[in-house]
């Protein structure tokens, strides 16, 4: 028995010590993992008490990895200007962002500021009472500096109150084609050969494979989640049937979903042809978008298609080796990306925050100090045109991509501007659209599991319209004044900004 005590006591002591030590080190290691600048802030915060203000810590959740460096730089400057405020910024992986916000809402543990996500509309969050208005962060004069359409119902504004603070230019991201110059040269081709049409893309891919003996492919596009191939095809399809929005395959002339539009079907058939003739890099079917673009960077394929943000993520030491070009379309005709006033990169202030004044200070600081950095480093244009014109983009590829993007985006009809009750339909359809998406259909078609893609897309269209119509009926049954005609804009001319 005494021997057992001799063994047990040290073990218990060791356990207690381990628990105590791990508790002490927790918050610092978390902060460093997220790459935020809280270290300096904590040192500064201890002097905050000296300046007479109680130290404040602001917790911020973002989901945009591409701007981590710029926001940390801005946070450092902010904490130097306001030593009593520490900002703990965390980039939450996109795949788990919705789940994390959902859990935080349920547990009433939202951070002081958190980012917008298209899956959870501003209207929903406002209805739940978890975000608060930030009307006095910007004056009306300051708001007028932003791109037209930035302050839109259901996105940044609900009724008369502003809820979201935009960080990026709202007209983003468009899909762009990138190329590797060294791989292009090895294939015996030049930048003049970069395709502008679908036939051109096919011939280009054939030439690359033949000229390199199969060592290099013409095109690589990762289709596994996360993938942007559906966005690529929908954008290219606007050159065939522009009434169908590339954002969500909704036809704003008829007021219905149209996944089986000729442009989308033909776009899919193009990629199927490339796949079947082994002109699309075979690993495309296994990789995510980022893995796919890495293969282009490594020279295993000449072309890749991705969002405009890829420009700022390419290897900075090899930028001379890359180029950007618009996506090819069926016969070279114009294409567009749709803008409906959605500021996809914006921050909310949680209603549960105990530091509303400090949160407002932070947002105002971001306007002055973050926006120029985003443009300087080619991450994204800011939401203020004057800042974009005054700031030089130091990344030439990002500059090319952003220029293509700004020429691609067009303002399309917005049902919520015509009838605000349509926002209730957005809430009602949330999470209920078919789980089989266009991305899934692309995968099934390219792997040969779907033989008749038109039939599957027609089924997807019917199921989506069924959910949409049911949502309208439900809103009407609850007293809402909304009808399918709110979504049909017969006077709209695609490619022309819609200003009723």
């Amino acid at each position: 028995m005494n021997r057992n005590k001799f063994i047990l006591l040290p073990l218990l002591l060791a356990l207690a010590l381990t628990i105590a030590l791990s508790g002490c080190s927790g918050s610092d290691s978390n902060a460093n993992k997220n790459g935020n600048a809280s270290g300096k802030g904590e040192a500064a915060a201890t002097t905050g008490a000296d300046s007479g203000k109680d130290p404040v810590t602001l917790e911020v959740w973002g989901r945009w990895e591409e701007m981590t460096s710029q926001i940390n730089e801005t946070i450092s400057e902010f904490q130097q200007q306001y030593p009593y405020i520490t900002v703990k910024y965390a980039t939450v992986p996109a795949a788990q962002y919705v789940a994390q916000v959902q859990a935080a809402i349920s547990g009433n543990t939202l951070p002081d500021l958190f980012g917008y996500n298209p899956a959870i509309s501003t209207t929903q969050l406002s209805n739940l009472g978890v975000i608060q208005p930030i009307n006095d962060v910007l004056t009306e004069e300051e708001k007028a500096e932003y791109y037209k359409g930035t302050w839109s119902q259901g996105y940044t504004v609900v009724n008369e109150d502003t809820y979201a603070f935009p960080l990026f230019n709202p007209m983003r991201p468009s899909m762009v084609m990138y190329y590797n110059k060294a791989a292009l040269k090895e294939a015996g081709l030049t930048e003049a050969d970069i395709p502008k049409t679908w036939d051109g893309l096919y011939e280009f891919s054939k030439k690359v494979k033949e000229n390199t003996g199969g060592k290099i492919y013409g095109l690589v596009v990762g289709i596994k989640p996360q993938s942007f191939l559906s966005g690529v095809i929908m954008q290219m399809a606007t050159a065939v049937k522009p009434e169908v929005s590339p954002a969500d395959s909704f036809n704003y002339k008829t007021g219905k979903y149209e996944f089986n539009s000729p442009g989308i079907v033909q776009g899919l058939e193009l990629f199927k042809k490339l796949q079947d003739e082994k002109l699309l890099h075979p690993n495309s079917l296994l990789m995510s978008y980022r893995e796919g673009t890495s293969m282009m960077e490594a020279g295993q394929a000449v072309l890749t298609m991705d969002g405009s943000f890829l420009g700022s993520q390419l290897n900075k030491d090899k930028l001379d080796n890359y180029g950007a070009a618009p996506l090819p379309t069926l016969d070279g005709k114009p294409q567009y990306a749709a803008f409906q006033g959605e500021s996809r990169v914006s921050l909310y202030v949680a209603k549960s925050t105990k530091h509303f004044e400090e949160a407002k200070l932070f947002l105002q600081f971001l306007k002055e100090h973050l926006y120029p950095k985003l443009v300087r480093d080619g991450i994204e244009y800011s939401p203020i045109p004057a800042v974009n014109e005054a700031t030089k983009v130091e990344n030439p590829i990002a500059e090319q991509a952003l220029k293509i993007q700004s020429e691609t985006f067009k303002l399309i009809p917005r049902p919520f501007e015509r009838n605000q009750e349509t926002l209730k339909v957005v809430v009602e359809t949330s999470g209920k659209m078919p789980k089989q998406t266009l991305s899934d259909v692309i995968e099934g078609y390219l792997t040969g599991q779907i033989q008749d893609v038109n039939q599957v897309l027609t089924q997807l269209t019917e199921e989506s319209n069924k959910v949409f119509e049911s949502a309208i009926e439900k809103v009407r049954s609850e007293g809402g004044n909304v009808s399918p005609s709110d979504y049909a804009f017969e006077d709209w001319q695609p490619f022309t900004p819609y200003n009723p």
Partner: protein
Amino acid sequence: MSIRRKRKIAWSYLFLAPQFVLLVAFTIYPILMSYVYSLYDWSGIGPLDDFVGLSNFRAVLEDSSFWNAFRNNMIYMFFLTVLSLPTTFVAALILNLKFLRGRTAYRTLLFLPVVTTAAIIGIVLKFIFGNDNALFNNVLISLGILKEPVGWLADPTKAMIVLIAVGVWKLFGMIMIYWLAGLQSLPSEVFDAAKMDGAGYLATVRYLTIPLLLPVATVILLLTALNGMHVFDMVTTLTGGGPYFATDMVDLYIYRYVFASGGFPQMGYASAAGIIFGLSIFALSVLLGGLVRVSGGKKARAEAGLGG
């Protein structure tokens, strides 16, 4: 009952209490509440105020995607069981041979996949079974078995074969240990007697080992089958349920409605799907549990026959 015994029992309950509280909080309560949630159209946030009765259950049962995932689960479970049981039995027989040197090392090597995180296995194997410039294809091409790379994970049938093979490999060590435990619990006098009667090794296995191991075998069958119903982590990282839902499993189907719905989660619908799946697993357990009981009777007869 003496005071000492009462005190012992009280201490036992005290030590059990934390585990019991956790069991209630994280297992029993969620299961009970899922039955409640399944009757509502609820996103998981806000009040439970949209009662829909059995609509969620009806929608799940009418959803072809659910049945696709269920069918895939059954296929995976079936082949996992059919391939694992005999091969692990043979491995256990070999590793139970007294004259085999390095038995401990072999057991450790075979058990290593069991303790490796399934999600990591999925990520690593995704690159090994990739298309171009992937290890598996390169080895087969260099051996002359293939002329060009095969898309192992890009073909629906091949992806399921890879998933099953990886599942068998991962579980191999665990089932082998079960068999070994069973083999080592068998009475040695029976085998000594058979040896004295001139029975060879294969005859011993056929007429003694297998009948005596029947109860253990049915328990192993039950455990393996149930294991085959939960394969979320490896499927998510290895195939993502693809290509095009060819390896979609019910766990992943439910996850999609809760965490990847493209909007607010559909907690009510996902709860209904979970209940239907849970009841299926329960039915399977009852069926296989019946086999365990029946085989217990057969063992008694086998032992009686030996004694006679």
